[in-house]
């Protein structure tokens, strides 16, 4: 920050160069050799982009240049992320004994690759007609979003990078950005890490085939559902906040996804920038909904399977994507039936809405089981225990409490504090997800007013608690920052999406 304050005195180029240098230093601190891979990939991509821009719009050379770029990026991702997985499966299927490569996954490669592919396609479509090197370097390396998104599109930041005196660490940028950052930090350090303690014991026990109680299975799965949301949305908020401190507006990534009343709605609220990428750069080019319903369902399934595989090199991730593919197909089929909603009372409408929410939430939870479980066996065991009617009855009698050690599951870190601690924590966290306004709702207006316009696809919010630089907000943000710091002093878990 001090460097930024000094650099910005020397103009726009100096601050950009400083931020790029800081971003590269940040990346290098993790694993220096991979910085060269990042820089090499940037150089090759930029060369291809510039070459493609020089070609006439309909030329074959333009098409093949872009194709080479896309394939190259996919291959790079494939080598680092999927080579071990592919070899393992070849060995298992063909009974071969190929050496399984142990490759360290470069930080953020999945996110960076998608950003680079999106830009290549934007150039091919002539949606982007000019790229300058510094802007491209910033676009790829900018440290807040380098590791785990949001997945930014070049045009939505290009204009910001080129706007004179836009990238500045000013008081107003800092006030908004720091406040968003603190909200993200609080979500991660206080909420996500709090529920995280219930997750591993359950999933690890399931991996070993231990007999879990229904309450234990639900505890682990619900806790993971919440942990993933607070962890990833917390990271996204921190990234958005950090960027905002320098005057750069990144797109929001979450909009209270667990409030969704359909799976279509869920994907408009969960990891918004990934859904956007998959929809615009995969689903639509595949034909989207323009080639009949059958093709639409096929496209949906294919996109979700690829989305699943993108999250991790494992069949459980593919299963997670496949499940969401089935959910989306069902949801679209249901909508295509065009059932007319009966004229019901407000209470009945509310009941219907609650039923829709419950079904959606349950479907999402079931899919998360595959997302987190180490094996299909573990996932099946968890789902079996979660759906055991006797266990469910017992659970409603006694709550989610799992004190002591049962079936090899130890909640030794948590059970000491309060007998009903687990139930209270999980339902409190769930209530925060469902009832509290999200970061978008709180900060959208202030970002637009104090920094710059947001992406226009956002839902419209009528938030009752818009952020403003008031005393009350100052105290709230200050206390949240201190709480997050205090929670972090004992240690915190790494961000979950760093794995993807």
């Amino acid at each position: 920050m001090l460097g930024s304050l000094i650099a910005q005195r020397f103009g726009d180029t100096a601050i950009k160069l400083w931020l790029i240098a800081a971003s590269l230093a940040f990346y290098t601190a993790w694993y220096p050799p991979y910085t060269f891979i990042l820089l090499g990939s940037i150089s090759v991509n930029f060369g291809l982009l510039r070459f493609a821009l020089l070609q006439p719009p309909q030329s074959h050379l333009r098409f093949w240049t872009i194709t080479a770029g896309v394939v190259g990026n996919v291959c790079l991702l494939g080598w680092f992320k999927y080579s071990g997985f592919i070899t393992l499966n070849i060995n298992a299927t063909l009974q071969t004994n190929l050496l399984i490569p142990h490759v360290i996954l470069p930080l953020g490669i999945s996110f960076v690759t998608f950003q680079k592919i999106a830009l290549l396609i934007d150039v091919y479509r002539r949606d982007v007609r000019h790229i300058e090197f510094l802007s491209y370097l910033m676009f790829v390396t900018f440290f807040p979003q380098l590791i785990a998104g949001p997945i930014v599109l070049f045009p939505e930041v290009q204009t910001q990078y080129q706007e004179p005196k836009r990238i500045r660490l000013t008081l107003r940028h800092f006030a908004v950005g720091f406040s968003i950052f603190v909200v993200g930090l609080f979500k991660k350090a206080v909420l996500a890490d709090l529920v995280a303690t219930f997750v591993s014991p359950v999933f690890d026990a399931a991996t070993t085939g231990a007999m879990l109680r229904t309450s234990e299975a639900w505890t682990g799965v619900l806790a993971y559902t919440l942990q993933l949301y607070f962890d990833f949305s917390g990271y996204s908020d921190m990234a958005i906040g950090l960027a905002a401190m320098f005057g750069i507006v990144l797109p929001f990534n979450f909009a209270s996804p667990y409030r969704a009343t359909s799976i279509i709605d869920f994907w408009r609220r969960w990891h918004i920038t990934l859904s956007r990428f998959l929809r615009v750069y995969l689903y639509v080019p595949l034909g989207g909904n323009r080639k009949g319903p059958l093709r639409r369902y096929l496209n949906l399934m294919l996109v979700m399977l690829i989305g699943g595989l993108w999250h991790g090199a494992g069949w459980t991730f593919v299963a997670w994507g496949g499940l969401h593919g089935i959910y989306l197909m069902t949801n679209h089929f249901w909508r295509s039936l065009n059932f007319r909603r009966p004229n019901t009372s407000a209470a009945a409408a509310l009941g219907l809405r609650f039923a829709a929410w419950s079904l959606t939430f349950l479907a999402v939870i079931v899919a998360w089981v595959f997302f987190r479980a180490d094996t299909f066996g573990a996932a099946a065991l968890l789902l079996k225990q979660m759906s055991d009617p006797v266990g469910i009855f017992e659970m409603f009698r006694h709550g989610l409490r799992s004190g002591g050690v049962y079936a090899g599951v130890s909640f030794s870190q948590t059970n000491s504090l309060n007998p009903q601690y687990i139930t209270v924590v999980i339902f409190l966290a769930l209530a925060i997800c469902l009832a509290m306004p999200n970061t978008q709702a709180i900060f959208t207006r202030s970002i637009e007013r104090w920094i710059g316009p947001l992406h226009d696809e956002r839902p419209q919010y009528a938030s009752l608690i818009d952020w403003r630089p008031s005393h009350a907000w100052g105290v709230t943000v200050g206390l949240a920052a201190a709480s997050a710091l205090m929670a972090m002093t004992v240690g915190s878990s790494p961000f979950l999406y760093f794995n993807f």
Partner: protein
Amino acid sequence: MIYPVIDNELKKYTFQQNSDQASASRPIDTSQIRLYIMIVFASAITLLILSATFNLLVDAKGLYGMVRVGGFNSHKAFQNNYGKEVKTFGVRAYLPNTVFFGASTVDRGIVPECDRTASSGGPLRIYNAASGGDSPPSFLAEYPNVRSIGTVQRIEIETRFPSHPMLSAKQHGRLSIPQDDSVFSRYIQPWLPPRFAINFLSDFFSWKAFILNFKTVAANRGATASTFYGYGADGRFDQDWLKATSPRVVDETDALNLAVNYHRLFASGLTNEVKSDLSYVAAFAAAAARDHLELDFFIPPEHALLLLSYSIGGVWPSYEQFKRDLLEATDAARERYSVTIRVFDFGAFNQVTEQTVKAAARATTFDPYYEDLVHFRKLVGDFILAKMLSCQISEQVPDGFGIQLNRNNIHAHLVEQRAKLDLYRSSNTELASALTERLARTTMRRE
């Protein structure tokens, strides 16, 4: 301002001119923002100072520094359920010379009450670094932290048969000590105070410390001496104390269920390559040689019923092989790295591990040794300390509890254990047949 907009038919993005360009440049009162930022930092600092003050007032010296002081504060050190929190920041003023690594068994069972003098001379300052679900690979990840304390001379490592399978590949992948060669540790850390000094300071600003101290104040209101030491006025185990430290009574049904579950838990990770799982021995030995530390590996005291399940489940030969392999691995590491390594076996039949399994109707009082088949109580932890570290405890260590293994005695030890296994089976026929039936049922169901 140009910004992307997705069209209604989802064909592609278009990039449009934003009509609200002027919005970002509306005049804003700078003094208001300045005041806001000041309030943010002032509120944060105030909360941190208030919490630090409270933590300082309640626990100024760190928990382990006050372990021998009865009453206020001691409660935490003897309240096993708080083990995790205790060890997390209790190390700050303690500067231990002996560190225990282990899973929840050690976490709950080893409480440094015998923190007095070792027979070899000099005070023992034991730091229990164990944690539920941990295993040697995760201890390796923790090793740099222990080393950073700077005063550790000996490490005690719980090593379980065949390896603790609660490992998640997503969490513990490596079998080597992480090289802390980040830019931070290489270039910045040397300019900072030692890590334990930072821990010392950061603990004052910790929520966990705050909550724990808050609970300490409440807990000590009604504390009595027996709350801390576990013995009533009649010299017997105080049931209230046992209840407070390990609130669990295991009856026959529970024990059988647990035997089946733990058997599956431990045996599920069993492969033909138990030896390869022991690669952590060499990793620890290399680190210990570099840092001039001594190492002890110990096989934990599992209840006899669980040992019986190994026999009935057909993995007893692997259990024996695991002990031989462990000894072989430590011998090789000792030779290669010239480091002192000892191996202790507590996973054997003896008066402690054969604690009676009660029928449900009689399971109303706590027994002194186990809270379940693998989670031993503090007294057994004291026996382990007395045996391995030769420290003084008030109870006599039962005969035959724990043996230091070496090349010369392992064969005889294993033969003796086989005989004791047969004896235990023949004198607990009902339990054995119930266990056989349950193990067969679960195996069939799995198939």
